[in-house]
């Protein structure tokens, strides 16, 4: 009995941190409508700053709590700075570019933190006066965690007072509901937003600084927390503070007890929980339809099939690429093989985002399913490569068919979160199902047979298969299938009223995109000779998203250009500097601010402008 009580309390302590971070996220989203991926980075910065300041001042209770407060304030200022310097310029950009910009910040902060604090885990000092534990029914429980448990409701109460009993809070709530009306009453939205970013980021920083005595500070804290915080916000209902609080409590308990009941699938539980909540309550526990974020992609100009000489550009490019092995060495071929594979991954995601307006945060799942599908056949059934490669798109396509059935029932950010949930479920199963997948150790020895083992031979094989798939995707975009998908995106209302079953079409597109990503995954497995769970982890989904957005979602060549640009930049930066994330993040920020339509879109605009002139 007492054991369960302690477990319950530790769930509450987890919930408190979760609530601090997710309350900040939900406040920022509520007012600015920006999905801020950098929120996790602010949490991490709070932890690092907290560690430094606690090391310096933390020998006394006053010093410790002063250090925590100072960290939160400093992080809040950084958040305000981000609003003024970056987000403010993007309020009128497509939401996807706001998202991309916050990814850029994530990368920059990663390397900045690594540069300042190093990549070693940092163990912080315990809070003075709270080092011990108390016995709760004969079970020891850390005193510090008890304080955290109290802090959750305290912060909720303070936030409630702030939003309900101060003029500032009243204005924020008014602007959240109707920005234009508030502005017509003399409220300056820009200043309000800076303040909101300050508050939201400070809450994340506070959550991070408070973790210092509990866990080692490291460079992986950002992604881990932001994904969990998103789950909390979505489960609770976007923009609802009380919802975030309730969801934090539920998820804290789920984690505390899940580990007892289902030790094998603890990681899956949270995402499974979110998927179930979203299927039953489309806008989260306390969310309302009107607070739901709008769908992501806005319709662009018509896709124009290249005419004249430009029609032969893809064929020419293919011929050029096919000739590369005649002149290039092995290293260049390896990089180029990867580029071709990633181009297929990006193009498959573009089918969803660019044509369907469906932003997937979990496309890596299908890349990974393809890779694992192929590798498992090789490992357990000694399947030959052609069979394994044929299975890759099939496995991924079936996975996408299953996940897609749920995902397309929701739109906008909720769709994105469901895709993320399924990706995390697939990832955790792979990670934890040691007997079959080898867990963390992955599957080794997935090499092509002799005839395809040479770098040039495998490159040609990749070019043929991925090139074929790219061609199919391109044809599909111009065929009725792609037009119907775009029709559903441009105007669901109109599409449904001219006989189109939009949801079913999106579902099939999801499966098609999944199987194309699966083929890319299969090719990737044989090019590396091994597969690991990281193939389907969040960073790969994010990379794919960045490639698509970098290239621009409004052109079909965009994802290919984006994949090449991204991978080459990444490889180049990695080989030249340890600070490649910083470089990449900075490039993304510059691109977002300079080319709000993506690189390929920008070039095409130049081209059309030049022609019209």
């Amino acid at each position, binding site marked *: 009995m007492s054991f369960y009580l302690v477990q319950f309390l530790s769930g509450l302590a987890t919930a408190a941190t979760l609530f601090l971070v997710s309350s900040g996220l939900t406040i920022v989203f509520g007012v600015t409508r920006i999905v801020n991926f950098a929120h996790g980075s602010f949490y991490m910065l709070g932890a690092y700053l907290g560690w430094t300041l606690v090391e310096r001042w933390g020998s006394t209770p006053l010093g410790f709590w002063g250090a925590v407060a100072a960290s939160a304030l400093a992080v809040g200022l950084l958040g305000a700075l981000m609003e003024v310097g970056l987000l403010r310029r993007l309020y009128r950009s497509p939401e996807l570019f706001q998202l991309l910009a916050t990814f850029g910040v994530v990368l920059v902060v990663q390397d900045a933190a690594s540069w300042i604090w190093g990549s070693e885990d940092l163990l912080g000092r315990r809070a003075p006066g709270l080092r011990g534990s108390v016995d709760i029914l004969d079970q020891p429980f850390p005193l510090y965690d008890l304080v955290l448990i109290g802090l959750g409701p305290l912060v909720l109460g303070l936030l409630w007072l702030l939003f309900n009993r101060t003029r500032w809070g009243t204005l924020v709530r008014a602007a959240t509901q109707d920005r234009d009306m508030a502005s017509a009453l003399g409220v300056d939205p820009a200043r309000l937003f800076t303040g909101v970013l300050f508050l939201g980021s400070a809450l994340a920083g506070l959550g991070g600084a408070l973790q210092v005595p509990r866990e080692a500070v490291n460079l992986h804290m950002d992604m881990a927390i932001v994904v969990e915080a998103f789950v909390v916000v979505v489960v609770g209902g976007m923009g609802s503070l009380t919802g975030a609080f309730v969801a934090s409590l539920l998820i804290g308990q789920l984690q505390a007890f899940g580990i007892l009941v289902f030790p094998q699938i603890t990681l899956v539980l949270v995402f499974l929980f979110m998927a179930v909540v979203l299927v039953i309550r489309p806008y989260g526990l306390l969310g309302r339809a009107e607070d739901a974020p709008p769908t992501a992609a806005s*319709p*662009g*100009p*018509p*896709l124009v*099939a290249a005419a004249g000489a430009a029609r032969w550009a893809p064929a020419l490019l293919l011929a050029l690429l096919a000739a590369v092995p005649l002149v290039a060495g092995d290293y260049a071929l390896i990089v180029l093989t990867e580029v071709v594979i990633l181009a297929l991954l990006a193009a498959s995601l573009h089918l969803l985002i660019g044509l369907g307006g469906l932003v997937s945060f979990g496309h890596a799942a299908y890349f990974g399913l393809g890779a694992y599908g192929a590798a498992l056949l090789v490992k357990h059934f000694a399947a030959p490569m052609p069979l394994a490669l044929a299975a890759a798109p099939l496995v991924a396509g079936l996975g996408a068919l299953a996940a897609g059935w749920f995902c397309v029932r929701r739109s906008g950010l909720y769709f994105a979160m469901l895709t993320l949930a399924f990706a995390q479920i697939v990832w955790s199963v792979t990670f934890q199902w040691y007997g079959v997948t080898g867990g963390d150790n992955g599957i080794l020895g997935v090499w092509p047979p002799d005839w395809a083992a040479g770098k040039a031979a495998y490159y040609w094989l990749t070019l043929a298969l991925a090139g074929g798939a790219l061609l*199919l995707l391109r*044809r*599909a975009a*111009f*065929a*009725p*299938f*792609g*037009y*119907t998908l*775009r*029709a559903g*995106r*441009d*105007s669901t*209302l*109109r*599409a*449904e*009223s*001219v*006989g*189109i*079953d939009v949801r079913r*079409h999106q579902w*099939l597109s999801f499966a098609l995109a999944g199987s194309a990503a699966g083929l890319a995954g299969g090719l990737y497995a044989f090019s590396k000779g091994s597969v690991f769970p990281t193939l389907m982890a969040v960073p790969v989904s994010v990379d794919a998203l960045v490639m698509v957005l970098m290239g621009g979602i409004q052109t079909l060549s965009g994802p290919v250009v984006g994949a090449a640009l991204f991978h080459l930049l990444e490889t180049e930066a990695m080989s030249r500097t340890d600070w490649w994330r910083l470089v990449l993040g900075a490039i993304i920020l510059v691109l977002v601010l300079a080319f709000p339509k993506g690189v390929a879109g920008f070039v095409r605009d130049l081209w059309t402008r030049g022609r019209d002139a």
Partner: protein
Amino acid sequence: MSRRLAVENLQRAFGGVQAVRGVSFVLGAGEVLALIGPNGAGKTTCFNLLNGQLRPDAGTVRLDGVDIVGLPPRRIWRMGVGRTFQITATFASMTVRENVQMVLLSVHRRLFGLWNPAAAGFRDEAMALLERVGMGAQAERPCGVLAYGDLKRVELAMALAGDPKVLLMDEPTAGMAPGERQELMALTSSLVRERGLAVLFTEHDMDVVFGHATRIIVLDRGQLIAEGTPDAVRADPRVQAVYLGGAA
């Protein structure tokens, strides 16, 4: 005149507010029926109930004798009810011609082709429809850059592409210049004669309503308060009071 649409005792409430209460009317082939009433009277709600966008709380809608209540919009469209929207809803990322082709592809159930270009399908049919509404010259322009009045005409061509028996037009001339309004309605009237269409439309421009409707029904706070020929409705004191206002 054969009866196409028969609406009986339609009801719909939103969160306790009764937006449509007990609306009944019939619409016959060859008729151009105007649904008028002050803002917020429930006109658009009525339309949404007819084409399946909203489900009525009670009442029946029969199309050629078949009850269509509860069917999704895409099914009702396939049964022959076309619609244009108050705020134009075209496929903004496609050209004018492609918008019409999209509808034709749907009519012929060719939505899943993966290989042959969509832009090659039913090209001539699409062009013929666009010529009919006077948009032939602008067929290759993206819908996203069209003037409002032109979008309305594209909407009409898209609706015609479905070869409807009944056409619902929600404020078909809003945002158009006066000359264009008369032109579009004259076009609609001639289509009604050619194809034996039944048209139900809402409109705020009284010149359009009294110039082109063969019959008028008047909605106020969710209820029909008058029905009749344009002259009869114009003379109805109740209509004067609620709609035409103190000005008359």
